[in-house]
C-alpha cells in the first residue's frame, strides 16, 4: 500500500515536470509582411514558421506552415502550434518566418517566454515542492517504522535466546 502510494507521488511529480515541459502549446504571433517593393502586402499567402535554439542553427526544433493567411495592409496574425503542437519550455528561441514565393533568406527574431509561461513556472514549482515534500515525509516515516520493527525483532530474538541459556 505504502509503496503504491509512493509510486503515485512519483508519478504526480513526473506529471508536473511533463506539464512544465509542455507549457507553451499555443503562441499568438503578429507580424508585418512587405512586398518586394517594400510596401505593405494585402491579400492571402502561405507562411512557414520555424523555431531554432540559436540564431545560426541549421535544424529547426519545430516548424509549421499556415495556408492562406489573410494579410491586411501588411499585418497578419497566427496561432503558432495550431498546425503542429508546440511542446517547448520557453526560455529563448529564434523564430523564422518565410512567406510563399520569396527567395530571400528569412530573418530570425528572438522570442522569449511570455508572462503566462513565467507564471506557469511558479505554479509548477509550488506544485512539485508540495508533493515532493509530502512524499519525502511519507518515505521518512515508513523507513523509520521499518527500522524500528527490525530492531524490535532483533531485541526479541536476543531476549528469547538469553532466556533459553
Amino acid at each position, binding site marked *: 500500500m505504502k509503496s503504491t502510494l509512493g509510486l503515485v507521488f512519483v508519478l504526480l511529480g513526473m506529471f508536473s515536470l511533463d506539464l512544465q515541459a509542455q507549457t507553451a502549446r499555443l503562441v499568438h504571433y503578429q507580424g508585418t509582411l512587405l512586398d518586394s517593393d517594400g510596401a505593405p502586402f494585402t491579400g492571402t499567402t502561405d507562411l512557414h514558421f520555424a523555431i531554432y535554439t540559436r540564431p545560426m542553427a541549421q535544424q529547426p526544433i519545430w516548424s509549421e506552415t499556415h495556408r492562406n493567411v489573410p494579410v491586411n495592409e501588411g499585418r497578419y496574425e497566427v496561432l503558432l502550434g495550431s498546425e503542429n503542437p508546440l511542446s517547448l519550455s520557453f526560455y529563448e528561441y529564434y523564430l523564422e518566418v518565410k512567406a510563399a514565393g520569396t527567395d530571400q533568406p528569412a530573418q530570425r527574431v528572438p522570442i522569449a517566454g511570455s508572462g503566462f509561461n513565467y507564471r506557469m513556472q511558479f505554479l509548477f514549482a*509550488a506544485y512539485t515542492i508540495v508533493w515532493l*515534500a509530502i512524499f519525502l515525509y511519507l518515505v521518512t516515516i515508513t523507513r523509520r517504522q521499518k527500522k524500528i*520493527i527490525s530492531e524490535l525483532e532483533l531485541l526479541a530474538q536476543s531476549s528469547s535466546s538469553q532466556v533459553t541459556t
Partner: protein
Amino acid sequence: MQLQSRFERPVRAVGYLLLAAMVVNLYLIFFFAPEERSMGQIQKIFYFHVPCAWVSFLAFFVVFVYSIAYLWKKERRYDLIAHSAGEIGVVFATLVLITGPIWARPVWNTWWEWSPRLTLFLVLWFIFVAYLMLRGFVEDKEKAARFSAVFGIVGFLDVPIVYLSIRLWRDIHPSPVVREGGLAPDMWVAFGFSLFTFTLLFIYLLYLRVQLQKSEVALSDLKRQLVY
C-alpha cells in the same frame, strides 16, 4: 498494538481512496478549474496553498484537543497523538510558507510582506517548531509531555488570531473568497475536492505517525526491560 489491528482495514481503505483522490484532484486543478481572470494560471496555487493551511490548522487543533486530554487523563496515547499531529502540522505549515511566497512573487512582485497575516502565520510556525524541539530538550518523558501539552494549548491560541487577522487589520493578503462567494462554481468543485484530498492525507499521515510513535515507545520499553 490493539489499535493497529482495529484500524488497519479502514486506514488501508483510506489509503486507496487517497490514491484515487490525488489523481482526480490533479485533473480538477490543472484541467477542470477555470483560469482566474486577473492572475491567470498562478491563481491555481490556491488549490493546494489553502488546503495546506487548512491541514496545518486542523493538526494544531488536534494538538490542542489531545494536549487537554493528556493533562486531564495523564494517558500516554494522548500525548503520542498530540506529538504526531504537531509534527504533521509543522510540515504543512512549512508548505504554506513556501507556496505563499511562490504565489506572491509574480502577483505582488515581492516574496514576502510583513503583513499581520503573514507575520502571525510565521509566528505560529515558530511556536510549533519550538513545541517539537521542547521534547528533545527535556529528558524526563513525562515532564516533556506535560510541558509540551501546555505549550501546545497556548500555541494553538495563535490559530484563530491568524484566521481573523485579515478582518481585524488592514492586510495585503487576499480576503477570504471562500466565505464571501468569490469563487466560480467550477473553482468551488476543484477547491472542495482539494480540501477533501488533503484532509484524507492528514488522516492517513496521522495514523502512520502515531503507529511510528507507538513502535518507538515499544522499542524503548523493551530496551529498558532488557537492561534491568
